């Protein structure tokens, strides 16, 4: 059935000209050499005062990058990207010197405030001083530690001290290279190898900043951790690298947000995120992706080519990815779980909205290697305008993964007759002792509930809307509070009339 009017109105709210984050910050910046070369890589490495092994690691990645080709299997199209016509390093001048929030220039603090992230106030109001705080107060005012990444550098990380008391390491990856080289050496590239794919290889060669989290054995991270990525400078790409390690029995919830100014050019964002969960550990990773999507004619916008992967190494470990994707001109992103430990679990919840001329090819990979591993994939896609959206997912069950279970459901909705919605689920099964289900129908989801709702006097469309919205809220509830509000505004879209 076609989408109802209310839905269409809601989607219109998301159209390009309503983009609130399209401003630029006037601040003196310094750039690395233009183009991709050994010189650029040496420049970045030197800027960050990196040890030699990391420089060699980068150079090796660059050698591999020169040999591999850009992938072409995704359902996206764009003019060829000129990798020589971009800056790989841009940073506010003197950025490396900020010792504390007090030294961060006002322009930057204002920028984050404008984006809804008052770095300084957050720390002062709720932070270190608030020792008398009761547990009830803590619940009322949930605190979030923020790592703010501005173009190529992390400008501030809040609540660092307090986290330290709990034993949690939360800092930019550049700092971690200096302060915890043993952890970086052990885990960097252990989930997404240097030459995993074209964009990951590029990232390995030129990554600039990102967040590093280590939660030690048995620790439940006392607050939400968050990184806010902002591209500001013209003609730059952002190549961040995030590494999160949850040691045995640890728990952490991490959220990521991103925006960029409105520009006519296409900007490249090629990030790598690696998660490692050891025995009994749990990582919750949420993203609200709202990069500048380009204007309604498809001019400008961020190319978001991201590799995100979690390694559930330990027994009973669990990783859950939740994403709300509304931005970017092109998205190419498949947050994945390698379920290596016995009884480990992977989850993927996604809501993606494309509009204008956006293109998104996104989904997940669940690789079942251990016994009794479980995975659950729920994906909702909404295409409007002249956009194209593809769900592409892989569920692979290896011969030794006895007792593995997967449930996948992906629904998509088209609004208007100029857009496209596509579903490409790959399933590979090598053991008879696994149960894999893939579904893509709305009615199957809720026959009984639908019947019940209709018994209560709702017409079919209202009943479906009610149920699917209720379900959507379930996905949104997976998001930490701070983002749930923003995400709800983005996805106040009912999903009735979904097609497989």
């Amino acid at each position, binding site marked *: *059935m*076609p*989408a109802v009017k209310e839905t269409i109105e809601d989607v219109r709210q998301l159209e390009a000209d309503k983009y609130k984050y399209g401003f630029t910050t006037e601040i003196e910046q310094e750039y690395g050499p233009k183009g991709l070369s050994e010189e650029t890589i040496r420049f970045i490495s030197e800027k960050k005062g990196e040890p030699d092994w990391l420089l060699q690691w980068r150079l090796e990645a660059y050698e591999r990058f020169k040999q591999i*080709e850009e992938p072409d*299997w995704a359902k996206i199209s764009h003019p060829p990207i000129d990798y020589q016509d971009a800056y790989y390093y841009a940073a506010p001048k003197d950025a490396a010197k900020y010792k504390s929030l007090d030294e961060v220039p006002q322009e930057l603090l204002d920028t984050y405030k404008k984006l809804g992230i008052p770095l300084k106030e957050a720390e002062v109001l709720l932070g270190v001083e608030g020792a008398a705080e009761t547990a009830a107060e803590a619940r009322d005012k949930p605190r979030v530690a923020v790592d703010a990444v501005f173009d190529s550098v992390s400008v501030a990380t809040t609540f660092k001290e307090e986290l330290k008391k709990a034993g949690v390491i939360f800092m930019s990856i550049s700092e971690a290279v200096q302060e915890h080289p043993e952890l970086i050496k052990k885990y960097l590239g252990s989930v997404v190898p240097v030459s995993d794919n074209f964009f990951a290889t590029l990232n390995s060669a030129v990554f600039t900043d990102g967040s590093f989290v280590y939660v030690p054995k048995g620790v439940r991270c006392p607050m939400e951790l968050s990184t806010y990525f902002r591209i500001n400078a013209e003609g730059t790409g952002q190549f961040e690298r995030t590494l999160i390690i949850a040691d045995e029995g640890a728990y952490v919830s991490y959220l990521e947000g991103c925006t960029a100014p409105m520009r006519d050019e296409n900007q490249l964002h090629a990030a790598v995120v690696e998660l490692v969960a050891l025995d009994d550990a749990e990582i919750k990773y949420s993203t609200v992706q709202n990069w500048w999507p380009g204007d309604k004619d498809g001019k400008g916008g961020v190319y978001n080519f991201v590799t995100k992967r979690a390694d559930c190494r330990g027994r009973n470990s669990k990783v859950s990815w939740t994403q709300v994707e509304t931005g970017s001109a092109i998205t190419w992103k498949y947050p994945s779980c390698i379920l290596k430990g016995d009884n480990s679990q992977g989850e993927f919840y996604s809501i993606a909205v494309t509009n204008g001329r956006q293109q998104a090819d996104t989904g997940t990979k669940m690789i079942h290697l251990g016994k009794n591993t479980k995975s659950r994939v729920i994906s909702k896609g909404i295409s409007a305008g002249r956009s194209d959206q593809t769900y592409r997912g892989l569920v692979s069950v290896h*011969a030794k993964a006895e007792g593995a279970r997967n449930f996948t459901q992906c629904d*998509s909705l*088209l*609004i*208007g*007759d*100029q*857009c*496209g*919605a*596509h*579903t*490409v*689920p*790959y*399933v*590979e*099964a*090598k*053991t*008879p*002792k*696994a*149960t*894999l*289900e*893939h*579904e*893509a*129908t709305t009615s199957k989801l809720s026959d009984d509930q639908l019947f019940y709702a209709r018994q209560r006097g709702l017409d079919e469309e209202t009943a479906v809307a009610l149920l699917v919205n209720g379900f959507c809220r379930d996905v949104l509830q997976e998001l930490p509070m701070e983002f749930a509000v923003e995400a709800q505004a983005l996805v106040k879209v009912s999903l009735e009339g979904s*097609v*497989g």
Partner: protein
Amino acid sequence: MTAPVRLSDFENAIADALPEGALLDELMAKGLPHRRVEAWKWTDLKTVLSRFPAEAGEVILHASREPDAVAKLEREPSMIMPRLAAALGGDCAVYELADGETLNLDFIGSATGHRIVSVTVPAGVEAVLHESYQGGKGSFANIAVNITVAEGAKLTRVIEQNAMPNSALVVTSGLSLGPEASVEQTTLGFGAKLARLETHVLHSGEGAKLSMNGAYVLGEGLHLDQTSNVRHAGPNGETDELFKGAVAKGGRGVFQGKIHVERAAQKTDAQMQHRGLLMDAGAEIDAKPELEIYADDVICAHGNAFGAIDEDALFYMRQRGLDEASARAMLTCSFLAEPIEKMNHEGLREALLERLTDRLETL
């Protein structure tokens, strides 16, 4: 940028037989399809054939009657396998089916051979096309079948693919459905060293109906790839697909189904289901049920589920005094029979069910 591929002796022998031209250039540059080609991900034709004898042979065709014409192909196909079939398989045998006719086409591969046939069902005609495929040891048969079903015509197509443990087979069929045309296709496949049954369907007119079903049983060392691409270009079309397969140790089943709905194809109703049964450890099933949709007022759904035999059902049957082997066989048979039972043609349906039961007994 692409590094030139190394051609095997087998590929070189095919290249030697080809005249100069675009097809030869393409083969020299890319070779035969292999697992790095997205559409052939789970069917590595290049590698399997590189171990086959590079010996020229032919595809023998036993038809129940003479063709109406033998002619050059009017339009060259676009994909490499049917292009090779058209280039190396000699002229195309053309059949125009009469109302009530049953045409039998039995293809037998010997060494490396190619063949192309074309079948037309004229407007308003109701007919049956029955194909069977088998091959001798070390044979590779590459066959292209073009079928045109005109306005309001009805075709029942049955494909039987015999177990061919030592040979390879690629059949590429193109079906074009006119307005209000209807096609019911049923496949029963037992696999080969490598077998691919690829079907492309175009709903070109309004209100065409396609029911495409298949069952497969694969024993040790047998592979079968059923790939389909159904394109809805006209409005109010219907597609209903059901594929079910059972794979024993050492067998590999591949299902790739795509439904493509163009902007003009409003009110399309398309359903695709694939169910796989892995009978033992060491069996493998790979599937990719794909939807590509550009129209906003359609009903499209797909489902895909894999698992083992329901232990509760097995337990219940054993309680009733059946031994485990018979209980398993019965459950497997009833699982696989569903796509075949959808056939309207009673005689063909019973024949296929019998062949299915026989095959399960010898597995």
